[in-house]
């Protein structure tokens, strides 16, 4: 009995040690992230001003700003969203609601899983070969946006499928039982009920696209742009113009990369400041996604 008590004490000691070690390991990442962010804010915050957002890049760090970068990021994401969302959601709906279980859907499934693991820079090479040189879109907003759309397509498809899979079968049966067709069931029931999950996936995908650098460099985005793409709205008929799609561009992460690579200390401050802006953008989108998921999870009870 005494012997057993001693052994218990011993194994409980190990248990206690490990529970502390594991707690610390879990928080190591968080603490480090916090330290890094503090560092970034201390470096960059002094440079953030109204002028920083409204100035073009310059040879003088104090005068340089991120106007062309954030406008470029915005336009690029617009293209990405227009291309990736309809395609990804449609593909997800097909795979969950229409496709049977056969070798063909198996291949699509393996393929999507694999695409999700392909390094982003490979998508850049793909876009370089196809959009820049084959379709001759050039090194433009359109090319960059489409490259990112290809990159996040697997994420959107997987999020859509997961959201649809959470809709219980009884809902489908109830709809079919009153004579609805497949598409009616999808349109009136499946899509509305899975909106939360799909939206969450889309936002996380787009936030990843905003932060992506490698594929955009590969398709040849410029690192020094002191002008804006053509305005999408104009005062003359037909008021909307798509000329901006084929204009050259830069984006936030590339601007940061460019500034990081320069030797002068002043540009490093700019890089930190732009890093804060980019970080706030992506963290805000991710927080929104987490919030939406939480809200929809609470609202819908099966």
């Amino acid at each position, binding site marked *: 009995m005494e012997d057993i008590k001693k052994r218990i004490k011993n194994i409980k000691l190990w248990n206690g040690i490990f*529970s502390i070690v594991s707690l610390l390991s879990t928080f190591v990442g968080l603490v480090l992230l916090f330290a890094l962010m503090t560092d970034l804010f201390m470096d960059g915050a002094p440079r953030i001003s109204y002028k920083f957002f409204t100035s073009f890049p310059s040879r003088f760090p104090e005068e340089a700003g991120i106007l062309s970068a954030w406008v470029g990021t915005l336009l690029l994401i617009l293209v990405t969203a227009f291309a990736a969302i309809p395609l990804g959601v449609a593909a997800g709906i*097909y795979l969950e609601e229409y496709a049977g279980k056969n070798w063909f859907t198996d291949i699509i499934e393996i393929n999507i899983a*694999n695409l999700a693991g392909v390094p982003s820079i490979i998508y850049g090479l793909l876009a370089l070969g196809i959009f820049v040189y084959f379709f001759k879109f050039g090194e433009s907003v359109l090319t960059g946006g489409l490259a990112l759309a290809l990159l996040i397509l697997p994420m959107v498809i997987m999020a859509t499928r997961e959201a649809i899979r959470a809709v219980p079968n009884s809902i489908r049966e109830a709809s079919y039982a009153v004579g609805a067709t497949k598409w009616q069931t999808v349109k009136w029931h499946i899509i509305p009920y899975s909106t939360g999950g799909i939206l969450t996936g889309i936002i996380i995908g787009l936030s990843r696209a905003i*932060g992506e*650098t*490698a594929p955009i460099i590969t398709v040849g985005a410029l690192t020094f742009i002191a002008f804006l793409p053509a305005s999408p709205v104009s005062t003359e008929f037909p008021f909307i113009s798509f000329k901006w799609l084929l204009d050259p561009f830069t984006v936030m992460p590339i601007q940061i990369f460019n500034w990081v690579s320069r030797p002068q200390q002043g540009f490093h401050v700019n890089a930190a400041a732009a890093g804060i802006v980019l970080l706030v953008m992506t963290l805000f989108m991710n927080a929104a996604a987490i919030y939406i998921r939480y809200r929809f999870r609470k609202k819908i009870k099966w």
Partner: protein
Amino acid sequence: MRIRERIIETGLFFSALSSVFITLGIVIILTYESFGFFKEVAIVEFFTGTTWMPLFAEPKFGILPLVSGTLLTTAIALVVALPLGLISAIYLSEYAPHRLREMIKPVLELLAAVPTVVYGYFALFFLTPFLQNFLPELSGFNAISPGIIMGIMIVPYVSSVSEDAMKAVPMYIREGSYAMGATKFQTAFKVVIPAAFSGIAAAFIMGISRAIGETMVVAIAAGMMPNFTFNPMEPVQTLTSYIVQVSLGDVPHGTIEYRTIFAAGMTLFLMTLFFNIIGFWLRKRIREAY
């Protein structure tokens, strides 16, 4: 009505098919351009050469320095990411109270959302100077600092996939262990981890594949020196950062220099494909296990 349904289904079908076209596109572009490359450079020289100087007047096309740079930074990242990821997964799955887990998981997801270029900034301007305090001989560009930062970056992926695998181990198996008087520690290591082995392995493989393909952190902080070395203190160049370096310059379309990035891309694609396939197979095995 019926025609409408048909049209819609066809449209959806082609959307699903688009993902296959992406893969085909990747394979065709990489193969086509690499083919052009290997018409001028011997495959043997490419895979065994230890000097990578494609942009010099007398170019050398040995890919090994880029592969060694990639493997070195990846290895450093894994030394950080695998233990931290696994241990935090054990904590979240076996130890953490429900409330705390629900709070930590979204924060870990945020960790995964930080843009890689920002992580690159940290590696170059925060970690490297910090490490130089202890390692005075560390050069400003090196493999160790981006490697560590990449590891931190990958932790959330490794931990979330491992945790899912551990959570999938049914409670009644754990109860069998607790009923024998085992502690959480013993139950986690002797029962849960062996039972979740495939899933944890899949998480590790995913982590490896991600580290191999990571670009910006190494492009910013590892230097752009194709060194054939395994010394973490020296600057290195990876497959990915080489592609970045060439893309930033003005290499004319169709030249051999232009094609090198596709040859490097092909090497990278094959390396990650290998790990992705193993990872996919392992994840499929978990789904069948319970």
